[in-house]
């Protein structure tokens, strides 16, 4: 179990207590609501000014970078364009580096694992192409595949993986994340109602750096406000506006 207690990151995030269990945890919120900050704290790449992030009672801040990365696989919102010269295979394989070592080459087992994840996200035919040769959506999937490739990580944290994906790619990624949610603690931020509903699991709505919605999907959406057919989410009379309706 991953637990945050009394976490504070300046004005950006204040979480008094949050426990995340295996399953899907969908984070929603407007731009600037604190989604990425929360995900970075959960991933252990941002040390909160106050409070602690604990994984099975072990403080993430006290772990070595590699030890932490073996337990928590994470991907930021905007992966660097410096990786564009890499092949899809090489980029995905980087996700195995915390476990296999940063200097390790690809053995057969790793190669098969990378190929399986690429296939899962519809990238099988692009495995040996450079990222620079792919469309934005394909590149996004290659980056996301990097975080999904390690089956042994306990927690998977992905910031807005659906940005720029078409319907088919979105559906493939939803399936992949739901599958991970059966065994891992998956924390993912999304912007769209349909994606949140397709993922299911637990909904955490952020507003002004605080968690204002916490419940199971789809009921949590009803509780949160008039979401069906609307882009607005209202909590206790305050506009939260966390989800956007996908145009039909």
């Amino acid at each position, binding site marked *: 179990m991953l637990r945050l207690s009394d976490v504070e990151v300046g004005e950006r995030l204040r979480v008094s207590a949050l426990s995340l269990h295996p399953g899907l945890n969908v984070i929603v919120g407007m731009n600037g609501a604190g989604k990425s900050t929360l995900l970075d704290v959960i991933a252990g790449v941002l040390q909160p000014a106050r409070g602690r992030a604990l994984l099975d009672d072990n403080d993430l801040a006290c772990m070595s*970078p*590699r*030890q932490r990365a073996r337990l928590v696989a994470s991907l930021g919102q905007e*992966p*660097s364009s*410096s990786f564009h010269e*890499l092949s899809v295979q090489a980029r995905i394989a980087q996700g195995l*580096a915390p476990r296999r070592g*940063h200097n390790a080459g690809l053995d057969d087992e790793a190669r098969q694992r990378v190929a399986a994840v690429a296939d899962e996200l519809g990238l099988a035919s692009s495995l040996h192409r450079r990222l620079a040769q792919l469309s934005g959506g394909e590149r996004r999937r290659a980056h996301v595949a990097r975080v999904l490739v390690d089956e042994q990580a306990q927690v998977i944290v992905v910031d807005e993986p659906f940005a720029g994906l078409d319907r088919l790619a979105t559906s493939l990624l939803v399936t992949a994340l739901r599958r991970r949610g059966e065994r891992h603690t998956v924390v993912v931020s999304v912007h769209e109602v349909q994606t949140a509903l397709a993922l299911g699991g637990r909904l955490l709505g952020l507003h002004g750096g605080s968690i204002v919605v916490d419940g199971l999907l789809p009921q949590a959406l009803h509780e949160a406000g008039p979401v069906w057919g609307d882009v607005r989410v209202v909590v206790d009379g305050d506009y939260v506006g966390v989800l956007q309706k996908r145009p039909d």
Partner: protein
Amino acid sequence: MSLRLSAAAALVVVVALVFALLCGPNGLAPPDSATVSLRLSRVMLGFIVGGALSATGAALQALLRNPLADPYVLGVSGGAAMGASLFTALLGAAPSALALGAGLPGAGVVGALAASALLVLFVAHDKGEGTVLVGIVLNAFSWAVVAVVRALVPASSSAGLSVWLIGSIGYPDDVALLVAGAITVGGVLALVTVSGSLSILRGGDEEALRLGVDVTRVRVVVVVAASALVGVAVGTSGVIGFVGLLVPHAVRRLFSVDERAVLPLSALIGGGLLSAFDGVARLGFGLLGSEIPVGAACALLGAPAFAFLLWRAR
């Protein structure tokens, strides 16, 4: 890296070294028994210096995420030259072979360490042109110190100090060759151990952290190893520019963009190429009656190539 590419790289190195061994003041010919050991030691020194500079360039380009990074451009070589020239001045007119063989590289390492530590401190959060500007400042300061030292030492010593401005591969004694070889092998191996982390660091500190890279440790390893490599290269042969810039770029273009391959290949191919270049300089003696310092030849070719990279980076 595939077996085919490894074989191609090995072939380049072997051809370059054989060519270097055959180059003499009287043209291309195998060295006679009287000169073979001298020629061999010079070829080996060229290989060591070229390997040290190229591996350092590859590591700095990855660490600083800057395609213009090179020990010469960034002032690390200048720092080493400053250290070595100060050491020469302090040593006096008649230094022993041991003092020169071990002391000069040591002084070079200290100077390079100071320069690279300053560089990394200044550019830790700068990914743009600031890196090169810091290099310009470090170089200007280092060249000024070398010039002051030249003015202050006796005339007999000051002529030798010009090697710190434009380097050349000489005929090293056994001690110098041994010290330079041992430190270079150690430095390159240290860089190779962090080469996988450097590959990931190209994507930024945050991505590296997410993938379990101990960014501070990698920075320390690169700064110390790069300083040792450049210090030794400059301490034995003076300042030779642009090898460290161009060889890693060529390796990335021709062989692999993975730093795990780029680092060892840059060391090997850079070593072979500098030896071959030095061979061409020896051939020049037969044609011009005087040897062109290999540092000058590298600068003549490297400066336009650097300008091209600068233009492309913009």
